[in-house]
């Protein structure tokens, strides 16, 4: 009887413990990135721009080249690297406080300039590392440390939908919103990431994958409750699916 390996720890994932909380979506996304980079054979030519936030130590886990950026400036740093060395595949790994709050300008203008970069946008509806403050993507009525009675529309406004905003910018080619809260959604996320990288390899333009990710600690839930909460609450506000796909148009 031969024993076949069905699933092995990805080769590009370093042998060390994640510092993330139990049930965090970051480590699932790290795992997917490693699998995609390994399958597409991009290890030698890929550069990741990790953000400040919980995933600031991404270089401890992913065995690829990294260049840390200041808060929100991921797209700007990625632009520089991509312009200096166009052969490199550059992707930013940004959270919602990073990409949709302090880095809104950089992201929109990088997309508008049709920079050939990829953004992995991890949306967990709060500022995770600093203790769960309200982010622009926080749900209406969601309790956070800076909105203890729940987010109110007339005071704090509506959740910001970055994928929809970027979909009307001319320079974006591929935008998809996925989640990492079930085996099916995790597989879809993996496909979306590899499609976004392929857009960059084909030199078509800006691509982004928005990933709805659970944050059990700051949502004050158990890991499995937080995975369900993504489906119950977040998906209503941030519908999943391909938001923009201009790959065929650009290839013609």
């Amino acid at each position, binding site marked *: 009887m031969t024993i076949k390996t069905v699933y092995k720890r990805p080769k590009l994932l370093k042998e060390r*413990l994640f510092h993330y909380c*139990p*049930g965090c979506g970051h480590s699932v996304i790290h795992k997917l990135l490693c699998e995609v980079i390994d399958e597409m054979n991009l290890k030698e030519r890929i550069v990741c721009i990790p953000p400040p936030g919980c995933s600031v130590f991404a270089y401890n886990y992913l065995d690829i080249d990294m260049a840390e950026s200041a808060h929100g400036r991921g797209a700007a740093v990625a632009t520089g690297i991509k312009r200096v060395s166009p052969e490199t595949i550059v992707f930013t790994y940004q959270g919602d406080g990073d990409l949709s709050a302090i880095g809104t300008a950089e992201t929109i203008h990088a997309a508008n300039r049709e920079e050939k970069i990829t953004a992995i946008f991890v949306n967990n509806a709060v500022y995770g590392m600093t203790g769960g403050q309200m982010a622009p993507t926080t749900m209406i009525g969601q309790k956070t440390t800076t909105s203890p009675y729940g987010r109110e529309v007339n005071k704090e406004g509506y959740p910001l939908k970055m994928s929809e905003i970027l979909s009307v910018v001319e320079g974006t080619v591929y935008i998809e919103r996925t989640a990492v809260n079930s085996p099916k959604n*995790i597989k879809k996320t993996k496909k979306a990431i590899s499609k976004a990288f392929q857009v960059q390899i084909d030199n078509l333009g800006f691509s982004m994958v928005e990933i709805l990710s659970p944050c*059990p600690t700051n949502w004050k839930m158990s890991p*499995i409750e937080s*995975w369900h909460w993504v489906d119950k609450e977040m998906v209503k506000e941030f519908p999943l699916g391909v938001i923009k796909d201009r790959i065929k148009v650009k290839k013609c």
Partner: protein
Amino acid sequence: MKAKVKMKGYIEINQESCKGCQICFYFCPKSSISDSGSINSSGYFSACFSDNSECNACGICAIVCPEAAIEVYRE
């Protein structure tokens, strides 16, 4: 005499990487994973695989495991 359970697959859980989030318990279609009851060096109650399970190596536990602590094998 106890009837032999025909196993088609099995998993290996790295007890030290496991953080006891119990997400694999929930998603396993055969309910083959349970609490080991022992604490690992990081202070978490780690998961363990029950030997008498009907595991068919579907790999769902490994896909959802946030710590990449599970490896799946098929016989």
